[in-house]
């Protein structure tokens, strides 16, 4: 799937390896949480880029001690209406100060991109026909924000107060 990062299409460093399937000799891998937990030591020992993919009901809290060993976390949207990952991403960035990639995967819409960006997602797996111009458009729809979030954009209240 095409991957957008920093507002542009980029090559994907990770290949998703379904549970039970052997890892390739080299290259980054994306694995499920259960696989990461059961094969943690060998995955880390291999020194390859690792992305852990979490289902919507998996709280990233369980990864907090391993975050320095994880290059990316993919948060899954089973359906765009399921908004749990908005909180998971924010928790990763704010509570655990996670600096790695947070990727949105699964079913999400153009209309959610700006919110996703605001809560700390920085990578997006999009549909084949997605046009990059749409990404910039989504980011530009609303000029101001009312609430503080991960993106540290100045809120309307801060602008009013001259901060």
């Amino acid at each position, binding site marked *: 799937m095409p991957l957008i990062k920093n507002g542009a299409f980029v090559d994907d460093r990770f290949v998703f390896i379904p549970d039970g399937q052997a890892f390739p000799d080299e290259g980054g891998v994306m694995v499920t949480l259960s696989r990461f937990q059961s094969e943690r030591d060998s995955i880390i020992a291999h020194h390859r880029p690792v992305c852990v993919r979490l289902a919507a009901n998996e*709280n990233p809290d369980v990864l907090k001690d391993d975050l320095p060993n994880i290059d990316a976390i993919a948060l899954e949207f089973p359906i*765009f*209406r*399921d*908004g*749990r990952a*908005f*909180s*998971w991403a*924010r928790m990763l960035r*704010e*509570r655990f100060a996670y600096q790695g990639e947070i990727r949105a995967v699964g079913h999400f*819409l153009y*209309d*959610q991109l*700006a*919110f*996703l960006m*605001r*809560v700390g997602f920085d990578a997006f797996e999009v549909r084949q026909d997605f046009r990059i111009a749409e990404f910039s458009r989504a980011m530009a*729809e*609303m*000029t*101001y*924000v*009312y*609430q*503080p*979030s991960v993106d540290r954009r100045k809120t*309307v*209240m801060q*602008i*009013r*107060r001259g901060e």
Partner: protein
Amino acid sequence: MYRYDEFDAKMVRERAQQFRYQVERRIKGELTEDEFKPLRLKNGLYLQLHSYMLRVAVPYGTLSARQMRQLARIARDYSRGYGHFTTRTNMQYHWPKLSEVPDILELLADVEMHCIQTSGNCVRNVTADHFAGAVAGELEDPRPICEIIRQWSSFHPEFNYLPRKFKIAVSATKEDRAAVKYHDIGMEVIRNEAGETGYRVFVGGGMGRTPYVALEIGKFVGKEDILAYLEAILRVYNEYGRRDNIHKARVKILAHQLGADEFRRQVEVEFAEIKRHGTLHLPPEELKRIEAYFAPPAFEDLPETAPEFEAAVKADAGFAAWTKSNLTPHKAKGYAIATISLKTIGQTPGDASAEQMDGLAQIMEDFGFAEIRVSHEQNLVFPHVRKKDLPAVYARLQALDLGAANAGLITDIICCPGLDYCDLANARSIPVAMKLQERFADLERQHELGEIKIKMSGCINACGHHHAGHIGILGVDKKGVEFYQIQLGGSGAEDASVGEIMGPGFGKDEIVDAVERVVETYVSLRAPGERLLETYRRVGMTPFKNAAYQEQMYAAY
């Protein structure tokens, strides 16, 4: 009242553009109806039985004359000449065309209004006591914090895809006119022992198929922390509210399942985290700045009463009756709070025509009223009327067919649109409400019966708040036939309680008689000064049930 600055103004303009683009993509087929639905709902646009329905936010129920005129214009140009005030103090229009909705949003933006988050699984329009800023005994006007919450919750990036809708209400008096304990979050302004004002925070109230009175979660939350506290509650809910079953997805289910102590513990953990970041701290100066918008008008130093008022009470029995039911004491001497009933006998409860809206705006301009309020009981309120102006105001209201002297009385019925409009409904509610109004139309009898709150819903979703009615009526469908169940003893006020179901439903030709027998039973049993609610609480269901079913036990299913 609050005025938009350049930032608020740009926000609602851009929102109209954003929605225009969503509509374009839907019409071109780039968005499926399944994808479009949550997007249009976040803009208050429903697809109902006969047409679209657009819900306009009236934040904390406050409108200016200019806004009222614009609502009239939209009713005339885009609907069928009327609008409907709802129990969440919003305005609903039936019949708008999808392609024209973005234009309506532009017209609303022109007068600092919007439809943002009036539906969908997000934080909805925040409501407050409709007598805010006018009634005696208030700790402070609850609307400034409502405005702050409106801004904080609008386009909240984390909480726009919650498990289910989320409603917040704020009250600042001992009497609860905002039904705070029936909201997802209810806030009561209180003062602690140190003399500081803050909020008592309730979570998990609600109606629908599993009615609950809210649990006390925050005993005292300081003002500067309130947004952080709300954010903590929302986060716990977003993470752990059920998403597998729409009927169990509201926060009331999570909160009551965990219990107050465990829910509070989880909120406190999040609250500590959010506070550690400090970004959601509400600076006192910012609160002051917003409060300044809500400063009360400069009240004149008036005598307690006015000769014009006293003379009209003596001369006009209609006016005298209206002053008894529709006036509430004002905190300032020589003023009154006037409730404008939208329950004129023979009219759909909550409806107002474009002419009535324009007429109300004209009254506001002529008498210098800066604002009008929408109440969750589907009435309107002039919050600050000089007593000497009351006879003239009343005459103007009468000319608009808005002079019904029934506020708080048995014909002041809260009622959802029901099967006449809504595709969720199981039964019609408007025709039953109208028949009840006709049955009890005699004004003397209404006043003699005192405060009786009838609330009616056409289905289990309880938009008509039947659980909180002194007499609640629920329309149900039994094999294609409409039946109406009676509940007694509900209250949405400071003595909140969920009504008790009497038993099987009554047919549409039986329900009015059954209600009348309940009411007559009350009259025969009441102690001096006792309202129906209190009599019911004292004597219980049995005498009412026996009376209601006396001839119809066999007819009930």
